[in-house]
């Protein structure tokens, strides 16, 4: 326990985390609700990371989330720059994109661009895009999630860019920098500081939102448990295990996010070099606040 504390992790909260697992596993099994009897063995079997279909389901959740989020960030940057462009057609395209993808349900977007486009013969998602073999549904899911995310990222990126002092752009221009250089070297790196905390929240959301792509038949984490409980008729154990896996993924992410935020904080405050907890871990309160 003391070793954990030295590393700034609060033992109390770690215990709390394990308590949830214990509560579900043992606490529930001792009680019976009507004819329901908690199957602790099945629950633990559902959690077992050595199960190979579960591994591939978890892998899909994480991989699709990362690729979709990256696509979302890139699209978001372009949409934000488009929205702020002097050239009117850029603004119109960017606004149209944001309007449509923020204004319609992701579920309908997934169904429409996969089944709808397929049925209309507009675009049939091939099973080997970019020379990589996977199901067409996986490509469709990743790209549609990414496009949807881009519309939300656009507003986040725009707020980040607007938070940068206009004097920075003027200084860059006065040194002979072009618009591209000014953006890539001066404005976006500074905007990143403002963008990264909400971006972290977006990725946290993305990890969980991937459960929606089950409608395209992709066996990601959520769909894995849906199919499993359907075979064994134990939804309580299955969904509890599924929830725990998602909780683990988002928790790990919050630590990663804290590290990223600290790296981007350089040069912001005179004490930025102090290794303090990042936004996410402060939010999670899993780390004790640093004493100064």
């Amino acid at each position, binding site marked *: 326990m003391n070793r954990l504390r030295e590393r700034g992790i609060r033992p109390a909260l770690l215990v709390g985390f394990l308590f949830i697992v214990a509560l579900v596993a043992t606490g529930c099994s001792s009680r019976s609700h009507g004819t329901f009897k908690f199957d602790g063995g099945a629950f633990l079997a559902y959690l077992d990371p050595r199960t190979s279909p579960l591994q591939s389901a978890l892998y899909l959740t994480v991989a699709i989330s990362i690729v979709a989020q990256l696509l979302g960030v890139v699209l978001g940057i372009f949409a934000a720059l488009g929205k702020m462009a002097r050239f009117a057609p850029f603004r119109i395209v960017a606004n149209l994109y944001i309007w449509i993808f923020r204004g319609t349900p992701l579920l309908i977007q997934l169904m429409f661009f996969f089944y709808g486009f397929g049925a209309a013969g507009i675009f049939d998602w091939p099973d080997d895009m970019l020379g990589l073999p996977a199901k067409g549904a996986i490509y469709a899911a990743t790209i549609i999630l990414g496009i949807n995310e881009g519309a939300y990222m656009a507003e986040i990126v725009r707020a980040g860019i607007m938070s940068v*002092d206009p*004097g*920075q752009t*003027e*200084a*860059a*221009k*006065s*040194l*002979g*920098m*072009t*618009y591209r*250089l000014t953006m890539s*070297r*001066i404005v976006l*790196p*500074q905007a990143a500081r403002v963008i990264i905390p909400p971006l972290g929240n977006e990725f946290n959301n993305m990890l969980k939102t991937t459960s929606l792509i089950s409608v395209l038949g992709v066996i990601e984490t959520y769909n894995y448990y849906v199919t499993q409980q359907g075979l064994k008729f134990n939804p309580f154990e299955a969904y509890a295990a599924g929830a725990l896996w998602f909780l683990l993924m988002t928790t790990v992410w919050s630590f990663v996010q804290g590290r990223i935020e600290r790296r981007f904080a*350089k*040069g*912001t*405050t*005179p004490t*930025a070099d102090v290794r303090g907890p990042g936004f996410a871990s402060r939010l999670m309160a899993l780390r004790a606040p640093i004493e100064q």
Partner: protein
Amino acid sequence: MSIQHQVEISHNLLGAIGGVPRPEADVVVDARDVNKWFGRLHVLKDVCLQVKRGETVVVIGPSGSGKTTFIRTVNHLEKIQGGRIFVNGHLIGYREANGGKKLVEDKENNIARQRQEIGMVFQRFNLFPHMTALENIMEAPVHVRSQPKAEAEATAQALLERVGLAAKANVYPNQLSGGQQQRIAIARALAMKPALMLFDEPTSALDPEMIGEVLEVMKELAREGMTMIVVSHEMGFAREVANRVVMMDEGQVVEEGTPAQIFGAPTQERTKSFLSKIL
């Protein structure tokens, strides 16, 4: 002044960038009948100004007189609606169309190239906060001029030494005082080897005890032959360093002359009343 002793600028400042950058023409800045409107507000009215090679021109005048707006038109941070501004004989920010009757804004890349020749120092320093002092100075030579990193770093280091901040190379701007930041901002502009330096109220945002160290660097530059336009309220600096003082009011050049003429025997009523208020 004790501050001047603290700041050791013993060596040649421009030596760090290989001597005085040679402008192509003897007249570095030639502004002719510059007119500018902000909406319906006429902020520059037929402003004319010539600056010769090696000259230091100080622009004075009450706030709202258009002096800052004017200096910002010289590197096209502000658009103009009438007149022409030439730097080194090149029309800045525009190209002539329709037989010279119309001005069309130049391509972004051309404007950027023209700005490489014109250094600018801002009232609020505008150092890049995510870069160290050294990186701030190296940024444009490396990414705009595609200079090899080692070469740019050597120049940056030499410039830092000349402005008395060699020890601060790896420090971020927020850990520096205003005076130190402004000296680094001057070094950053000099690293591009500009033929002309523009100073937009470089000491107005500084605590009084830091003004001296920045003015000292500017005096040094002027003495070494840099061509400079300085918008400033520092009359002591103007008196000592300026070849010419330009008085602006309500968007017009009211009067110009040597410091002795302007401060000793101003001919215009507006100059007299302005000087009586600030001296």
